[in-house]
């Protein structure tokens, strides 16, 4: 996959705005009580989600975690159905049964998300196994955070993926915090890529504030995987600009740290970069405006949509 032309990069910015607008809207709806439950927002990680997913084919697989609205949108999920799901409506992707942590949009390759830290990594291995077995040449991606790095199942998965040369890309979004504490409280390891290197899995650490850098790493990882050369591990240094979940005051974070990251905001940075590259200010402003209006309408229809019929609660337990 070649380097994107300017128009292609503007499309990436549009996608990043769509995520940013979506997440800000969810936060707003949560504050108003129109969305309930455990909501984890990905504001600040748009560069990672969009950078990685832009390197994928539409039939490649993505497996998300508890903080995966961004990944789903980046993979092409419909924002109306996504918003409706988070609002618990019948028109949502999962008919209101999954909610924010359990999004599934399989028709765009976003197979599923999970609320169990590290729980999706093995699932991604399985999709890669399917690809190897059926030789359909697809690639699987697992997004997980630095907190999942210390879960044993990640280590089991790295070993297995390396042994079997599975076409899987491990994307570790290292936002520096596992739930409410810094990574240093979870492990003495500083570069999470060390976990993968021991299994001879190639690794790279990239700046999540730079969507194009993320994309380049993903393009090379995906090419490797598709060529049958096995897994790769990408550590994306990123940040969440909100707390662990909506309602978390994030008192554990230093103010200066937040300010620094606001400056390194991937959306603002990419916008400035494109301006520098000569994209007209109007065009850029239009990307944000279009995204915000698209999301406003998604939110409006999600809030207005009817809740599911209670009787639906007992369907879909078994496939028939």
């Amino acid at each position: 996959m070649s380097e994107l032309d300017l128009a292609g990069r503007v499309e990436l910015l549009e996608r990043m705005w769509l995520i940013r607008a979506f997440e800000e809207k969810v936060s707003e709806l949560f504050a108003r009580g129109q969305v309930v439950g455990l909501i984890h927002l990905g504001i600040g990680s748009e560069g990672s989600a969009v950078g990685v997913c832009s390197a994928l084919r539409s039939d490649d697989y993505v497996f998300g975690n508890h903080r995966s609205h961004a990944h789903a949108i980046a993979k092409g999920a419909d924002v109306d159905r996504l918003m409706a799901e988070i609002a618990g409506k019948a028109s949502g992707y999962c008919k209101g049964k999954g909610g924010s942590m359990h999004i599934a949009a399989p028709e765009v390759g976003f197979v599923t998300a999970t609320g169990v830290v590290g729980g999706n990594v093995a699932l991604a291995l399985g999709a890669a196994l399917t690809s190897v077995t059926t030789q359909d040449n697809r690639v699987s991606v697992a997004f997980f955070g630095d907190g999942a790095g210390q879960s044993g199942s990640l280590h089991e998965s790295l070993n297995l993926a390396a042994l079997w040369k599975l076409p899987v890309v491990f994307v570790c979004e290292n936002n520096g915090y596992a739930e409410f504490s810094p990574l240093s409280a979870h492990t003495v390891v500083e570069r999470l890529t060390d976990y993968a290197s021991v299994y001879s899995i190639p690794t790279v650490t990239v700046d999540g504030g730079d969507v194009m850098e993320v994309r380049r790493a993903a393009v090379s990882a995906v090419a490797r995987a598709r060529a049958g050369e096995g897994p790769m591990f990408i550590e994306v240094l990123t940040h969440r600009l909100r707390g662990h979940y909506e309602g978390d005051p994030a008192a554990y974070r230093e103010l200066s740290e937040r300010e620094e990251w606001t400056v390194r905001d991937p959306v603002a940075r990419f916008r400035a970069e494109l301006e520098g590259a000569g994209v007209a200010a109007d065009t850029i402003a239009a990307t944000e405006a279009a995204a915000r209006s698209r999301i406003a309408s998604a939110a409006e229809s999600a809030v207005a949509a009817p809740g599911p019929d209670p009787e639906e609660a007992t369907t879909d337990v078994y496939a028939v």
Partner: protein
Amino acid sequence: MTAELRFIDAIHAGLQASLAADDAVVVIGEDVTYGGPFGATKGLADEFGRHRVRDTPISEATVMGMVTGAALTGLRPVVEVMFVDFITLAMDQLVNHAAKLHFMSGGQLRVPLTVRVQGGVRGRFGAHHSQSLESWFTHTPGLKVVAPAFPGDAKPLLAAAIANDNPVVYLEHRGLYWDKGPLHDDPVDGAVVRRPGTDVTVVSYSKMVHSALAAADRLADSGVEAEVIDLRWLAPLDTATVLESVAKTGRAVVAHEAVARGGLGAELAATIQREVFTELVAPVERVGAAFAPVAAAAALEDAFLPGVDEIERAAGSLMAFGPPPP
């Protein structure tokens, strides 16, 4: 005259047939290319290739997740967990993922996965290799559970499990592996009456069915006709067959090798009481293991394991309640 097959060979034949019939079927587990500890998968790697019969590291958690992911995306994996006790290591993937993904996704996803596990008390293996954990699986919505008692059922039940679009836990009792029996082509949906009777219903599954039948023979000698039901499927549970029988006999014993506390016996006792309360002439009796881990010593293992005597005693105690109301 149909061929007599050992239970373990029936499973082997079932795997072989499914691998041959459907390219999406893959067999995955520790040492499966070698044949596993009991030979269920012996030779399958040579016959179908190592891309369809794969050995894994000793990483139960990830292997269970991986086969779930493979099932989500088009394969029909049959994963072997060497001892049911080791499923403790894979519980998060089995319960939080495989069992729930169809529901959580609002029906968008399917997990056509078969989990073969062997367990039960046999061989003085001690508490880490002898547990009966089926009520965990029956307690988990989204999982189906099957527990064959006869070699003849083993193959068609395995085929049914593999063909099912849901995760199915296929429980094998290693104490049955060397039993021989004829093959049959009878349908394997739901429970089956193994021995008709009029006085008391004995409900069981897996290896305990054999104890139930032996107990029924003894009861017959003292003029008590026991009807023996082999559940075969523990989830979904064929309560209709059970209730029909108990409505007729008015008495029920539920027998299994798992501890009584919180076991399937409790579920059946609750259901029977609720549904045919007025027909019951006696309380539902449970025969299950004592509330203790499984000890390794032969003498203690034998004491732990309920069997023919306990079933006979339980049925006998129900007969003391007199005849059913007219």
